[in-house]
């Protein structure tokens, strides 16, 4: 017993001593060396889920951000310095995310960070980036993210209510009155479900039924059968791309003939793939950007994305690309180039035209509002142009 205590304490000593040096090993500069030498890269971190069920969100983020950065590097970088993207996997786990936020802030000393595509992890990271005064970007849509009083958080896409308000106002205008909601119990699903309910309330309506499910569920017969008893005209989805697709499929199979509609997650090729093109046909959704947008900027982005990643661009890739463009602009203007100045410059951006529309950064860190009503037609995501 006593011996093992000594052994353990010695082990503690060894581990701690070892811990004091290693992880930062690749950092080349000695403390005294000038860190701002021309040519030393500027670091941007991505913290997102690269494995697990949410891996697809992290993957899209990586692709959008990397594309924007590579284009900038090809054009000469920022103030003659190249930009380096460091990617970390937080497995959509807030505990891991907080650790990684500490890591990129204190070890990698990044200029800015994308953290993360999950609203809970983004919320968990906010205090850390605020403490280090490093700009934090997210494409999570939960409204609470920008309500925490941080001057260092930026949302590169409209907040959740922006999607659901447009969607429900449109459907109500079309004469729909009976809405049912099916939302998962994650932060995203529950948030979107709440925004849908709020938007209905604004239109003096209430959902006929609101049902919930766990993010791992695969069979929704129980919930859907109950929903169908209320004979809704519209089924509102509030969940991830994959679960939304499975629900749309099962709802149709159970004989639901009405309108299926949803927010950001529904407006993705992943949703169409999961639901199948046949079933996704006619599904209404809202998004600030579509891959087949007609303007030149979007076309250039879609071509570049396809060339770089050999896959079709979608909304999350676009909003992380947009957000990175904002960041690059702010970095150009920041003088001297410090994370704090970049954040300050971010707040000054007004009227930037990006893929998703015109960006006006607010004090709270919102960058854009407004979404388009869209529809799935022939397996493709298209802008709704009337019947």
């Amino acid at each position, binding site marked *: 017993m*006593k*011996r*093992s*205590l*000594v*052994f*353990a*304490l*010695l*082990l*503690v*000593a060894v*581990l*701690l*001593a*070892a*811990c*004091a*040096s*290693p*992880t*930062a090993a690749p950092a080349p500069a000695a403390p005294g060396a000038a860190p701002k030498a021309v040519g030393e890269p500027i670091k941007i971190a991505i913290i997102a889920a*690269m*494995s697990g069920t949410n891996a697809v969100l992290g993957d899209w983020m990586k692709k959008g951000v990397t594309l924007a950065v590579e284009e900038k590097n090809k054009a000469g970088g920022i103030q003659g310095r190249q930009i380096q993207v460091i990617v*970390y*996997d937080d497995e*959509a*786990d*807030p*505990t891991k995310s*907080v*650790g990684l936020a*500490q*890591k990129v*802030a*204190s*070890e990698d000393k990044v200029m800015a960070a994308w953290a993360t595509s999950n*609203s*809970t992890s983004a*919320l*968990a990271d*906010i*205090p850390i980036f605020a403490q280090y005064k490093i700009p934090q970007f997210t494409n999570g849509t*939960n409204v*609470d993210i920008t309500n*925490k009083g941080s001057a260092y958080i930026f949302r590169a896409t409209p907040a959740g209510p922006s999607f659901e308000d447009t969607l429900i106002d449109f459907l109500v205008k079309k004469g729909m009155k009976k809405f049912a909601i099916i939302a998962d*119990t*994650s*932060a995203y699903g*529950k*948030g979107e479900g709440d925004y849908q309910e709020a938007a209905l309330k604004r239109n003096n309506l209430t959902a006929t039924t609101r049902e*919930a499910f766990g993010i791992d569920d695969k069979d929704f017969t129980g919930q859907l059968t109950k929903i169908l008893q209320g004979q809704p005209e519209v089924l509102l989805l509030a969940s991830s791309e994959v679960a939304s697709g499975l629900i749309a499929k099962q709802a149709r199979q159970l004989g639901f003939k009405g309108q299926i509609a949803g927010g950001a997650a529904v407006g993705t090729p992943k949703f169409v793939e999961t639901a199948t093109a046949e079933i996704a046909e006619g599904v209404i959704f809202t998004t600030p950007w579509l891959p087949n947008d007609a303007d030149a900027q979007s076309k250039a982005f879609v071509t570049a994305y396809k060339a770089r990643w050999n896959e079709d661009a979608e909304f999350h890739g676009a909003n992380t690309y947009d957000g990175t463009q904002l960041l690059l602009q702010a970095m150009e203007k920041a003088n001297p180039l410090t994370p704090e100045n970049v954040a300050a410059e971010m707040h000054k951006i007004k009227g930037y035209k990006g893929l998703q529309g015109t960006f006006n950064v607010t004090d709270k860190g919102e960058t854009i509002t407004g979404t388009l009503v869209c529809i799935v037609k022939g397996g493709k995501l298209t802008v709704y142009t009337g019947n």
Partner: protein
Amino acid sequence: MKNQSSNMKRIGLGIAALVLLGFPLIASTRYQVHIVNMAGLYILMSLGINLAMGYCGQINLALGAFMAMGAYTAALLNTRMGVPIWINMPLGMILAGITGALIALPMLKVKSHYLALVTIGLAETINIIIVNETWFTEGPLGISGIKMPELFGIPIDGAERFYYLVLICVVVGYLAARQIMNHHTGRAFIAIRDSDVAARAMGINVAKYQIMANAICGVYCGVAGVLYAHMTTYISPDIFEFKTALFVLTMTMIGGMGSLAGSVVGGLALPLTLEYFRAFKSWQLVGFGLAIMLVVLFFPGGVIGIARRLEQVRGLRLPWARKPEKPAQTEASHVP
């Protein structure tokens, strides 16, 4: 001879104490301190499960729920009423301890893997309640804006200062666990682990000690939860899912089930090792899995088991040459 070894021990303890006290000064970045702080929380939970499982033989996979009780107590009291950590800590310990005692009740009836499932089920149920009762717990989005603690006007705000708080808790927790094990309570735990039938025959109130072991386990996890809430200032239900319990069990196993020192070794070794291999991404977790399998198949006593073996048998015997002994039997029989 005896004097010499006790001198050696004193020197060893002195060096270890110095390193422990000076660590935030040696560490080159705050992140390293953060990782060690997290390891400290894991050590606390691991000590708890070691008492309940390694010493008392009670399988329990509801550690995440205990931690959640502590963390939510602290988060709710702090954000809604501004209660500081010093009051949240005892309250969180009490609530998590009660949860531990309640979860122990099915143990009196259900055994072995049936029990494993019951504890998983209870933990999941607690998690579902936290997710759904948004009016009270803020639901899946979690609670943010928890304040970091303050002591006599000095804010304990960075990871470096928080480190000392964690260190105190771990040292106190370790010494308390040792006291329990040296006390007759500890001997009762071991008697129950080895055979609850024999323990009962010896006049030990088995139910009482089983409930006690799990309540203590709950208290340890509750402390970790309270510390976690005040350290990261944000909690959400997904932090306390089943995987947290698995992680703690794994580190306890790697350190050595049924050895308090094993908890310390495992709690430090696993998070730090994983950190070293982060760059290998998915391969890191493949390696992690393989390491667990190797430990289980060839070194079931964990690191401490190896150390003890090396001590006993100076001549280095290869571990696979021996018939594996049974360490820390969780249940005497599979079916009641």
